[in-house]
């Protein structure tokens, strides 16, 4: 290990292994009320016998530990994340500032709505904007993430069919679907039926016609799909589904390609979910939080989760004196998916983003996302990369494209995984790997609109460099990375003998 970096030499030590008995960062306020023995207040038998073995550190130790730890992370502010299906676009700091205003950040969710009019007005404004983007009239901001929004959508479908005295059994989903779709379907009590993909990368219409029947509750898909391709038959697909009385659900994970250009409601969908942590700049936070609002058609609206935000007469003459309110009187509602109103902190950020961009800016974002993706693909072609990593489907892509590493594996003896690990040494987060499952040795690339042409050029060059290096010596990529805080990790070992907490 002659070439160890400083960070590699710095071995991982958890906060539990630091500190000493008696150290503390917290000073409890003095007890200013009459002292009572705890035994008097809470019987001893209900009380804790041995304390939780939390760390004992001073404040400087605590700060140093976590700041040093942060430096072992790559992040979007630092570098490029062409992660297909994730939409890693720039996170403006303005959003942190406004979300941190005490009027937003320190507002209790059960505050009297009359004294939370700013929050309700903001949520109303966000709903109207999302409604406009979706082309559907009614919105709920409640779901906590995209997959939560999907679950809402399928439960809404269930309620809709029950209202019509029907109990359907299956949900159709394309075999290119994101993993969350099938899991959601099972949790909602339905069976997954997979629909095939045709040679052009779109839904196989014949297969769809064969499988859509009176047992079908819903079709769930995303357009553009997970291959980054817009299905030109989308209107026909939705018609087939509606003809058998099923609902059509649109997974909004790929909305970044079509904002202001095409609307799921116009394509005929009944339910759409948005990922505020994708197209709307909610920072990913290393894996959450997110938010997954849904927009629905008129016929689905009665079943929306409660409460619903309503706008009463602004002049207060209806007696409540308030312009916005939370309406719980929703007899057909599916109920609740979580506590309170949803991830308001995410709403503030998304709302600020929409205010910043406006109609023209949102359209610009999508146009630029699609332009950047197509340009990056063209650049990779120019550099000869696509001879070893050909596009899975040779068409104009939308905001992302899928490459297959099959030829690279065959000719150079390195896999998509090895390419990804070697790209880490070049200072990039690699694209999404091994998704969609339909594509062999898949690499799914989504640059987003906030990257410059220079970054795209540099990334394409880095990929070309890795391939050229592999042609001479494939072992280098196979053992990459070399310069990251740790090198390739034993994932099989972690799963075989799981160690899921610090031994104390």
């Amino acid at each position, binding site marked *: 290990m002659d070439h160890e970096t400083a960070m590699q030499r710095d071995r991982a030590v958890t906060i539990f292994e630091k500190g000493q008995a008696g150290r503390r960062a917290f000073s409890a306020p003095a007890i200013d009320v009459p002292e009572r023995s705890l035994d008097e207040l809470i019987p001893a038998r209900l009380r804790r016998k041995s304390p939780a073995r939390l760390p004992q550190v001073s404040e400087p130790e605590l700060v140093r530990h976590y700041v040093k730890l942060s430096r072992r992370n790559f992040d979007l502010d630092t570098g490029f994340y062409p992660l297909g299906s994730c939409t890693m676009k720039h996170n403006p700091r303005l959003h942190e500032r406004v979300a941190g205003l005490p009027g937003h950040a320190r507002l209790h969710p059960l505050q009297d709505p009359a004294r939370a009019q700013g929050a309700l007005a903001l949520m109303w404004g966000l709903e109207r904007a999302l409604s406009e983007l979706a082309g559907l009239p009614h919105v709920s901001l409640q779901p906590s993430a995209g997959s939560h929004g999907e679950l809402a959508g399928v439960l809404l479908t269930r309620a809709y069919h029950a209202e019509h005295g029907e109990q359907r059994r299956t949900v159709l989903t394309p075999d290119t679907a994101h993993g969350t779709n099938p899991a959601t379907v099972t949790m909602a009590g339905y069976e997954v039926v997979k629909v095939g993909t045709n040679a052009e990368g779109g839904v196989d219409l014949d297969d769809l016609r064969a499988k859509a029947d009176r047992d079908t509750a819903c079709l769930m898909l995303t357009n553009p799909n997970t291959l980054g391709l817009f299905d030109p038959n989308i209107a026909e697909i939705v018609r087939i589904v509606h003809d058998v009385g099923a609902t059509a659900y649109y997974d909004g994970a790929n909305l970044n390609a079509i904002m202001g250009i095409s609307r799921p409601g116009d394509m005929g969908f009944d339910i759409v979910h948005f990922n505020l942590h994708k197209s709307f700049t909610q920072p990913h936070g290393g894996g959450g939080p997110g938010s997954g609002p849904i927009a629905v058609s008129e016929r689905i609206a009665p079943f929306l989760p409660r409460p619903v935000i309503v706008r009463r007469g602004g002049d207060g003459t209806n007696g409540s004196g308030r312009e916005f309110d939370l309406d719980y009187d929703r007899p057909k509602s599916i109920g609740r998916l979580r506590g309170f109103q949803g991830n308001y902190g995410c709403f503030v950020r998304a709302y600020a983003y929409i205010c910043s961009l406006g109609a023209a800016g949102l359209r610009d974002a999508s146009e630029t996302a699609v332009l950047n993706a197509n340009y990056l693909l063209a650049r990779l072609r120019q550099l000869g990369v696509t001879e070893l990593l050909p596009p899975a489907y040779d068409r104009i892509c939308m905001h992302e494209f899928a490459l297959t590493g099959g030829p690279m594996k065959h000719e150079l003896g390195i896999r998509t995984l090895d390419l990804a690990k070697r790209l880490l040494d070049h200072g990039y987060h690699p694209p999404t790997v*091994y998704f969609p499952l339909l594509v062999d040795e898949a690499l799914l690339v989504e640059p987003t609109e906030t990257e410059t042409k220079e970054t795209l050029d540099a990334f394409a060059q880095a990929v070309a460099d890795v391939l050229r290096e592999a042609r001479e010596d494939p072992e280098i990529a196979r053992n990459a990375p070399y310069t990251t805080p740790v090198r390739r990790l034993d*994932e*099989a070992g972690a*799963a*075989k003998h799981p160690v899921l907490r610090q031994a104390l």
Partner: protein
Amino acid sequence: MAEASYPSDLLYHPEHDWARLDGDVATFGLTWHAQDALGDIVFVDPPAVGAQLSANQPYTEVESVKAVSDVFAPLSGEVIEVNQRLSDSPELINEDPYGDGWLLKVRIADASETSGLLERDAYVATLDE
């Protein structure tokens, strides 16, 4: 096991399971193709001795780092022995899928069910599709 191999003395199920017959006792396991597709196997939890298996039905799952897969019974029968070494060393399935990586032994219920299984060449042909 680096090289694909499919012993000719075994019978194969299209879902990538094999059976070795010895009188009325059959040994079951996963084929080379199955362990190769799954990658490093990390966990398998077979049914207990005495459990009844039905041909063509999944009787357990095998888990690798990247996937979980159903394991299908090639034949019906009662479980009489389970490979205990797999709980500590599931990687035996990768290293020696037809030998030390065997899953379990059953007393088969109906010998005629073997007609539903494939000979080695027929099974290998399905892999090329």
